[in-house]
């Protein structure tokens, strides 16, 4: 192994270096200058994000434990952009809530570690690396969920999260051991060739699916979602709903499409059923929510159900639909959560009724919120419409017309509740609306970039064509 081959895991090495630098910074900087850490962290992560867009070779390391190929590299870059956007939105929160307790460095280190875990998980070539990455991504985020230790709800979120994450990890590990028992290997390649499809393997897959489904919040593994999203700091809810979920979907996709591709018919009806359940449960609960964070939590559950549509296709069309959808979904949800975050931080409310008359005082925030929710709902010509359309197309191409029809019904339901906050902000009048909020420059940059991204991705086909080019992972 030389430096060249080691550079295959450039992203992870870079990220580790940043974590170490932050750690050193935390030790060296005096208390009064801890504020610098925010800027150092942002700057380092910006560099990481930029480098992640440089091309990467295809190859593997550690005897196949670690793999990289264009699609996974591209997806890491998307996640980096998402995290960068979240970080930009959270600068003010860090200054207000974390700096006084001297928790700045911890926040960055934990968040970057979680991202590092996701990167390893996505690049994993065997179950060991996969599991290590999964845990590395989960544990720091549990700590972050409980970060506002003065807030009871935050603590509650942390406790619920760690308990349920443990249950799900246990089940996942049990599934992995069942697979190991029948195929005699933990390497994906070997598993694929040794698979003989006895019942035990299918049960193993069900358990692995449950473990990943926990991260994606598929029904019935979704119960933690709303409580944790609501209790955790909004920044962390944002991270959980897009970054962590996106990576988990990616992993589920590669596992189902490549490693367990032979399961096909023995398995698809489960996905079919879970897709319907997830869409309906997510939507039906989202309708009733008055708390914006819980609302977005259930909306993100429903969105996960739509992704399953394309998982049924088992072909390149499904891959490109999923990756494109995740890209748009990350953009839209980061924007929606960002608005909720800023309002929660400045006006100390997460209640939808308090959003009444938001447009009269904060027109620009209202526009961002509207755009994000329209994108989530899939209203043309915003990017979200095309993203959903490709998902349907992928499912329809394999003849799942009834499922697509059910999905369309669900989109209709979702349209109703996505319009509720928009109606509150634009049409409802209020005696005392949320006062004018002055957002800091970082949040502004983040919002402007996201809005441009949403509009451009909806109208410019270049990105989709690129994804389509690198989607051949079989």
């Amino acid at each position, binding site marked *: 192994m030389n430096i060249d081959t080691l550079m295959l895991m450039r992203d992870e090495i870079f990220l580790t270096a940043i974590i170490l630098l932050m750690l050193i910074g935390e030790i060296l900087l005096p208390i009064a200058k801890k504020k610098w850490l925010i800027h150092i962290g942002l700057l380092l992560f910006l560099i990481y994000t930029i480098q992640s867009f440089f091309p990467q070779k295809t190859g593997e390391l550690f005897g196949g434990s670690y793999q990289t190929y264009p699609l996974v590299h591209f997806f890491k870059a998307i996640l980096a952009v998402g995290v960068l956007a979240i970080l930009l939105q959270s600068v003010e929160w860090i200054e207000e809530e974390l700096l006084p307790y001297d928790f700045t460095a911890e926040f960055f280190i934990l968040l970057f570690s979680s991202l590092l875990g996701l990167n390893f998980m996505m690049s994993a070539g065997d179950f060991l690396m996969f599991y290590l990455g999964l845990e590395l991504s989960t544990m720091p985020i549990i700590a972050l969920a409980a970060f506002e230790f003065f807030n009871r709800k935050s603590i509650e979120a942390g406790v619920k999260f760690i308990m349920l994450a443990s249950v799900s990890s246990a089940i996942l590990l049990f599934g992995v051991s069942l697979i190991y028992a029948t195929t005699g290997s933990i390497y994906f390649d070997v598993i694929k060739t040794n698979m003989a499809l006895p019942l035990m393997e299918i*049960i193993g897959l069900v358990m692995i699916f449950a473990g990943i489904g926990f991260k994606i919040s598929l029904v019935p593994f979704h119960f933690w979602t709303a409580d944790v999203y609501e209790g955790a700091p909004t920044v962390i809810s944002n991270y959980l709903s897009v970054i962590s979920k996106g990576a988990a979907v990616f992993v589920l996709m590669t596992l189902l499409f490549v490693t367990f591709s032979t399961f096909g018919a023995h398995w698809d009806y489960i996905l079919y059923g879970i897709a319907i359940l997830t869409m309906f449960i997510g939507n*039906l609960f989202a309708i009733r929510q008055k708390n914006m964070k819980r609302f977005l939590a259930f909306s993100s559950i429903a969105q996960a159900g739509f992704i399953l549509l394309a998982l049924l296709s088992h072909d390149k069309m499904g891959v490109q639909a999923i990756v494109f959808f995740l890209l748009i979904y990350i953009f839209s949800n980061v924007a929606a959560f960002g608005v909720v975050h800023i309002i929660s931080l400045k006006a100390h409310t997460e209640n939808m009724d308090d959003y009444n008359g938001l447009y009269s005082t904060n027109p620009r925030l209202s526009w961002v919120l509207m755009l994000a929710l329209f994108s989530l709902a899939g209203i043309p010509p915003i990017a979200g419409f095309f993203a959903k359309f490709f998902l349907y197309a992928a499912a329809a191409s394999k003849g799942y017309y009834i499922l697509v029809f059910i999905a369309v019904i669900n989109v209709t339901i979702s349209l109703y509740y996505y319009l509720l906050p928009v109606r509150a902000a634009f049409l409802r009048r209020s005696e005392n609306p949320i006062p004018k909020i002055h957002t800091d420059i970082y949040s502004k940059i983040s919002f402007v970039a996201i809005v441009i991204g949403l509009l451009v991705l909806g109208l410019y086909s270049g990105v989709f064509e690129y994804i389509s080019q690198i989607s051949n992972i079989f």
Partner: protein
Amino acid sequence: MDTFDYIYLIPLIPLLMFLFLGFTARKIKEPVSGYLGTAGLLAVFILSYYTAYKYFFADGLVDGKYQQIRVMLKEGWIHFTDKLAIDIGIIIDPISVMMLVVVSTVSFMVHIYSLGYMHKDPGFSRFYAYLSLFTFSMLGLVLASNLFMIYIFWELVGVSSYLLIGYYFEKPSAVAASKKAFIVTRFADMFFLIGILMIGYFGQSFDFMTLNSESTISMLNSWIANHQVASFLGLSVITWALILIFIGGMGKSAMFPLHIWLPDAMEGPTPVSALIHAATMVVAGVYLVARLFPMYYHIEGGAALRVVAVVGAFSALFAAIIALTQEDIKRVLAFSTMSQIGYMMMALGVSGFDGYEGLGYMAGMFHLFTHAMFKALLFLVAGAVIHAVHSNFMKDMGGLHKYMPIASWTFLIAALAISGIPPFSGFFSKDEILMAAWEYNKIIWFVGFIVAGMTAFYMFRLYFRIFHHKDTQYEHPPHDAPANMSFSLIFLAVMTMAVGFISFSEYISASLKPFHSHIHWGSPLVIGSIVIALVGIGAAYLMYYKETEYPQKVAAAFGTTYKWAKNKFYVDELYMYVTHKIIFDKVSKPIAWFDRYVIDGFMNLLGVTTLGIANRIKFLQSGRLQDYAMYFVSGVVAIIIIVIYYK
């Protein structure tokens, strides 16, 4: 041959002017915006006359035939199929150059006239912006080199006409009129579009030069002869396409039965009526038929052209009868316009193609040209009178001759011209139309002949009742219009007297080859038409020069007919009945009921059900950790059981 590359400037200048005035309408005030708009139009005016000079006297005529020059701005703008594409181009041939002169002259005069007429109007700058937009659209329509471009400008003309009719948007009647004009013409344009697509499909081109070429026409005719294309009611589908295109023209040119918008459109400012509803937009239909004249004439033996002739003749008569009875001077002029355009359509309809046989085509174009001048003049005088008297109705006028001599004299010139008294311009063009009609069909000629008499009568009824008739006492003594308005009147009066002497057949003909035509002074036809005009004028003199009892007696003698004519033969009411009582009540309402109660009801049911279910399952999200873990594990177990069961 010299090039016409600069030609795109002619429509471009008003477009830029519109954009500039439109964006700065709140900043630039009267009269600067008016001067700017007028200066832009002056440039267009000069360029148009230069083009006309260059085309007719220098470059146009090659080997005894006028060239059709196509200036291509963008080839293959939109591709439908490999063969069928839309270009952006400009066509220069005798009729488009003639229309350039008409549009730029009238528009320029209207621009100058409006400086006075719109004085102190709060929307002064907006008015000039709209005028520029309209002029741009109309020039584009005239210069368009293919059917699709003409359609684009056709709609733009419709929009700018809508804006100008509804200029006084605080007046409900103006708003209603603008909507009516837009909807009626738009309704006609639907047929126009279908016709365009059909012609494009069969002719494999939208380009006028290609469509009018002998090869295309003979190809289509051979298809018709061999029954290779469908037919309907004995006419081939290609003829029907031409009729559909003509329906589009009927909408814009206010031919029966699509004329109902034109009288109402008089709600707009009077200079607008002069520009749009007398000289330019309303003749777009005539221009369209003339543009495609080779197709109309040759396809299936000119079946579509016969429709044009009949519709034109009927509209001419129909409108003339109504014009006899109207009291509002602008409405008299509106129906007169409709009648005269019917005349032009009729002229095209009765025309042959080659040489002297193409007299009707030439006469139609000639009449378009002369009519534009004197009808614009009539409207502008009417505007000056309305401006002075503050009323549209003849009963409030009378004896204005001594107060407004310029208006009176110019009106008299225009009235003599439209009545067909030599040597004024209308005589020449009208006489040639009647001559062409005589050779085509005696009934059509007779209709034209009667209409000529009626025209003379109602125009002089108008003249006498406004300027003589009685001595009305005015609160503020009216006086002649200010210099800028009077200038336009005098200029157009000079044009009205002069243009009749142009030997039009030297320049304009259906086959593009010049021919000779001259008035046979001694022939009974010419004498007859002068006599009928004089009879009309004489009758008007007897009845209206002084206040007499004749009008009531004549009206009583005609009884019901008079009442019907005065109410415009109840065509408006018929439309109201069809749209409200039949379409709205019998079709729209049941559909609306179905939408409200069945479709919406079903949707509401879905909504209520969804909310109900959401309420029932809320216990699942209890917030208790042990429940969540239990659901999680039971979920896994349930899936495993299903898998085992199905395996």
